[in-house]
């Protein structure tokens, strides 16, 4: 890995000194702090005078503080962080003429893309870790509940999945920055992809499922289940759905499935069993393992694609 360390260090210091990063970090830190604080205050009020179970701690991340919960915030805006760190990774250097200078030094070509990806992933991890830790501290202060090992383990798993999820969008952005010459085009294209896969895929899945089961009577239980199945199967194309599913049982130990209410058995719905007897972490993990694996695969595929394209690109066009 000749040259990797040098490029990695330079990329990191570039990120740290860029206004883009500072603004982004300030924004994310502010939103997550306010959300967690409001959620914590609400919970503290609601649970006043009662014994708080240790699972309450995780609710800091899932309860809506100011209209949305922290987990939802990361689901929606985490990808933006990845896109912003990667959309000009390669084409900016190409446009400024520094890429061919870099490559004419005695380094392997893949060191450039590996180092850029790693540096951005490091930034993402640092940012997320900082936010999770600050909220943990804030939670202890506001709620007076100390997270146990189980809760900490869940947060670690949540952290890892989130980094993979954001890194997926980072890989997409880097791929576009290799394919497209203009920085503005790659920025817009990555935004467009993000919007399409995050929002339109689930709307599309719904429309397809509805049209496929259109001739069944509306109260036919078989048709309802079929519709929900089709919708779920298609929604898996959306990283946002994947991520939501993957983290669902992780941050909420009382959740035992990622399936929608329709597919949950009748007795289970009625029995309130959902809220009693939280799952241990390994069981929670098992439930969402397919989602996690699929998310990791998507990220690896996206990065591999940008790696291959970059390695094969003619230098003349650089």
């Amino acid at each position, binding site marked *: 890995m000749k040259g990797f360390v040098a490029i990695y260090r330079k990329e990191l210091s570039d990120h740290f000194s860029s206004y883009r990063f500072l603004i982004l970090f300030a924004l994310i830190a502010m939103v997550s702090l306010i959300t967690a604080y409001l959620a914590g205050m609400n919970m503290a009020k609601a649970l006043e005078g009662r014994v708080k179970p240790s699972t309450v701690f995780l609710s800091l991340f899932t309860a809506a503080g100011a209209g949305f919960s922290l987990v939802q915030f990361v689901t929606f805006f985490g990808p933006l962080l990845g896109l912003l760190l990667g959309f000009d990774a390669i084409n900016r250097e190409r446009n400024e*003429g520094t890429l061919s*200078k870099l490559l004419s030094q005695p380094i392997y070509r893949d060191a450039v893309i590996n180092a850029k990806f790693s540096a951005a992933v490091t930034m993402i991890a640092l940012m997320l870790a900082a936010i999770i830790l600050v909220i943990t501290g804030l939670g202890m202060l506001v709620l007076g509940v100390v997270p146990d090992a189980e809760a900490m383990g869940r947060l670690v798993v949540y952290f890892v999945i989130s980094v993979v999820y954001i890194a997926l969008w980072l890989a997409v952005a880097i791929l576009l920055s290799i394919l497209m010459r203009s920085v503005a085009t790659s920025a817009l294209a990555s935004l467009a992809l993000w919007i399409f896969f995050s929002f339109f895929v689930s709307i599309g899945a719904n429309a397809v499922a509805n049209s496929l089961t259109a001739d069944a009577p509306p109260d036919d239980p078989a048709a309802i289940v079929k519709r929900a199945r089709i919708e779920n199967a298609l929604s898996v194309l959306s990283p946002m759905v994947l991520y939501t599913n993957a983290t669902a049982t992780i941050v909420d130990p009382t959740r035992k499935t990622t399936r929608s209410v329709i597919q949950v058995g009748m007795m289970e719905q009625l029995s309130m069993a959902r809220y009693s007897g939280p799952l241990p972490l390994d069981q929670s993990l098992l439930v969402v393992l397919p989602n996690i694996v699929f998310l990791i695969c998507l990220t690896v595929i996206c990065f591999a694609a940008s790696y291959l394209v970059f390695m094969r690109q003619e*230098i003349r066009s650089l």
Partner: protein
Amino acid sequence: MAQEPIIEAVQLTKVYNGHTAVDHLDLTVYGGEIFGFLGPNGAGKTTTLLMMLGLTEPTGGTVRVMGLDPARHPLEVKASIGYLQENMGFYRDLTGRQSLAYIAELNGLERKIAQERIQEALEAVGITAAADKKVVTYSRGMRQRLGIAEVLIKKPRIAFLDEPTLGLDPEATNRMIELIKDLCRRHEMTVVLSSHFLNQIQKICQRVGIMIEGKLVAQGPIEQLAREKLGVGDRTYTLEEIYMQYFQEH
């Protein structure tokens, strides 16, 4: 002067999307010389240099740099060639000294050696005073000199200088030419110099190659080309006359 070939290209060919950029090129550069690489824009000079650097793979033919195939030993070849590209880019937010330090780090130089070489290179090109200013504030000439300094800290055996005097004022041009001459003499560096300023080439190059539409139409010492093309023995001639002669024939 050592007369050992340091770069040898045999039937070197590069085809881009059906367009032949370099067409069966035979070229030899000898160790320690300043070789003038001439030709109109788009003649394929830069592509040839990129193939010699191992940044582009040839479609056909072979090239050897110090006996090595750049496509198979890219790191060794790139470590011993300093390349000043045309319109070289810089990281604007770094200072001149930081830019050099980055290049040194990429070349795997130890910090202490790197610092010495950076100081040396800054002094050699005469931008020590501006070394700690950001590159974005540099004038065209200063950037060009920083580019040369980036070549120098590698202490390369070969330097490819693509239009090193483009956009410089006459005085800076002269200083650049003197600098190149001096470097070649003191560091025993082989220089491949590509330029459109033929009188500069004539001043410092021992041998030249003329490339037109992907083909090398002439190669050799300037006097020899003059004798062959212009048929002059001792009449004064300029490289420009020779060049135009070749150019009109194609």
